[in-house]
């Protein structure tokens, strides 16, 4: 339900919208209306629509978030290479400028749609919707959405994806989960990347990074990996992704809708949708 097309008007609240319905007034003479919607209601509505597109074709949509330079594109290149024979994949690339990342993906023989956001620091559901229409979802198993490199803004926007991957490279510091709790709380899996550099770094402790992540009440997996060397951690990531895809297909077959860890208040609010707009009494 939404407040765009009128589907939120039910028998229970219809009288409130009619001219002779009960409207309340504040002491200074204004009319007050309770809304109880997410501040990103328009975005969330579009995101739900995107998710329906993905679900219709049983496609798993994966959102990758991290700071710039933590290795999102590198992880994708290696993942596409390893899984290319097993799954049909495509990538939506979000960057402020350039087609560089999309070109790197296309070099692997995988379709890539580049979204250049200009000065916008995050992708939103409307941008992703446009990109989705340039992909033939009926021919795909997984769509990766590489968000704009930024540890703040992307966490607040539901794109219509199913899972969030948050990357933290070892050169960034193990205190990042504590510094950016909103971003790391959104993670369905935390990947500690560039682990091959750990042998030359004495100031990053994966155990400390994991502890800071757990302090955000996160029980989700933490995997330290090197996409460059395709180490054991990288294989664990591949296994996680493959299992997530099979579970996703089972859930879709059972008619369930899978949502990422973010936008929890949106989920809570959704339960109120039947009475989402009522006048203050």
């Amino acid at each position, binding site marked *: 339900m939404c*407040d*765009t097309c009128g589907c939120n008007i039910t028998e229970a609240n219809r009288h409130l*919208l009619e*001219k*002779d*319905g*009960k*409207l*309340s*007034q*504040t002491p200074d*003479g*204004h*009319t*007050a*209306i*309770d*809304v*109880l*919607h*997410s*501040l*990103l*209601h*328009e*975005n969330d509505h579009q995101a739900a629509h995107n998710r329906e597109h993905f679900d219709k074709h049983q496609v798993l949509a994966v959102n990758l978030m991290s700071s710039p330079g933590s290795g999102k594109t590198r992880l994708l290149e290696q993942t596409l290479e390893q899984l290319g024979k097993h799954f049909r994949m495509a990538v939506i690339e979000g960057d402020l400028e350039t087609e560089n990342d999309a070109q790197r993906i296309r070099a692997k023989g995988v379709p890539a749609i580049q979204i250049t956001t200009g000065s*916008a*620091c*995050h992708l*939103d559901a409307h941008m992703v919707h446009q990109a989705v229409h340039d992909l033939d979802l009926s021919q795909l198993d997984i769509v990766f959405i590489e968000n704009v490199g*930024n540890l*703040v*803004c992307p*966490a*607040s*926007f539901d794109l219509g994806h199913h899972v969030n991957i948050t990357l933290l490279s070892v050169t960034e510091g193990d205190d990042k989960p*504590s*510094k950016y*709790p*909103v*971003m790391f*709380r959104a993670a369905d899996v935390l990947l500690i990347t560039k682990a091959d550099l750990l042998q030359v770094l004495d100031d990053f402790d994966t155990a400390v990074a994991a502890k800071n992540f*757990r*302090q*955000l*009440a996160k*029980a989700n997996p933490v995997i330290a990996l090197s996409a460059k060397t395709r180490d054991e951690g990288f294989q664990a990531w591949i296994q996680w992704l493959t299992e997530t895809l099979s579970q996703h297909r089972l859930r879709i077959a059972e008619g369930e809708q899978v949502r990422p860890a973010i936008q*929890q*208040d949106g989920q809570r*609010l959704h339960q109120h949708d039947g009475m989402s*707009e009522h006048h*203050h*009494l």
Partner: protein
Amino acid sequence: MHELAVCQDIMQQVTQLAARHKAKSVSLIRLQIGPLSGIEAPLLETAFTIARAGSIAEYARLAIETLAVKVYCPECASESVVSADNLCCAQCGNWQTRLLQGDEMILRQVEMDMDDVPDPDISTSRH
């Protein structure tokens, strides 16, 4: 940095609401924001002065209620107020807590000025 985008979404919702109720103008917009929503109230207020320009809410006031971060601990069955970067139970230290409050970004209420001619049905329904 994304507060302007959030404001634009709010303005879309408010404009539609005002049109549906045939309001003359919007006077007040009440929001509830939790520290784990990723939205900074001062930045949102600044962005709002840009987003409201030329709209039906041009002279509207933004009232932001900031909510505390609260968790529930299933281990010791207690609720505690905690900081955004450490959601462990304040009583027993257990990290596997459930967030009760603190990630909200809610458009709570909108106050509008209706037509100049008072509707008798409206004026008699004050509580």
